[in-house]
């Protein structure tokens, strides 16, 4: 397995910490974590330790954004490298979600 996904609570926020390669083969692991965290008022998806992400990983996050909106919650995404941010910008998803450069910034909102 080349992806690690962990869930942590920070006050009223839930952080999904993702590390490794988020792709067609591993996106289901993130999807499962996001499904488990559904209902959180504030959900931070921390991709700072993700080395690679493709559009299937992005699709999982987009589904979570839609679910959060439906539930009245908020999703914030952390990216720390241009190559991960690029996947959001190329697809226009950066316009649909609040993006931050660090977990601390995302938690502060």
């Amino acid at each position, binding site marked *: 397995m080349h992806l690690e996904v962990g869930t942590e609570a920070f006050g009223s926020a839930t952080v999904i910490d993702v590390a490794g390669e988020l792709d*067609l*083969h591993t996106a289901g692991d993130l999807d499962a974590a996001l499904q488990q965290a559904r209902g959180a008022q504030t959900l931070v998806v921390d991709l700072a330790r993700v080395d690679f992400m*493709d559009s299937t990983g992005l699709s999982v996050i987009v589904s979570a954004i839609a679910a959060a909106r439906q539930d009245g919650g908020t999703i914030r995404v952390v990216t720390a490298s241009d190559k991960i941010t690029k996947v959001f910008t190329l697809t*226009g998803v950066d316009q649909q979600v609040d993006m931050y450069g660090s977990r601390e910034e995302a938690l502060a909102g």
Partner: protein
Amino acid sequence: MTTATLRIPAQTEQVRVARMVACTAARRAGVNEDDVEDVRLAVGEAVGRAVLRHQAAGCEDPVTVELTEDAGGFEAVIIARAEQGDQDEDFAYAVITGLVSGAQLAAEPGGGQRLVLRWAV
């Protein structure tokens, strides 16, 4: 001109192998490091799309990836033997076309599609 041909089983875990080999070939061809990241992502998207098409169609043929180094640059050709089914490929295409200007999609003789991605050196 040097061409390496990969034939990978249509399994999601194999997409990573294609990405790694494409990056190695691109570096060998002289593609700069920023563009090598684009090769990694674009080839991964294209191979992933092909794998999903094969799986959806029950096609047991391997996905073919041809990596060519020539005087003008580096080219990756990804051949899917199955047509698009119900899969949503919008994000994958947005990424590929955003990374590779002039990406060419054509019908493959005998069925399927070939996607040609090229980077100048």
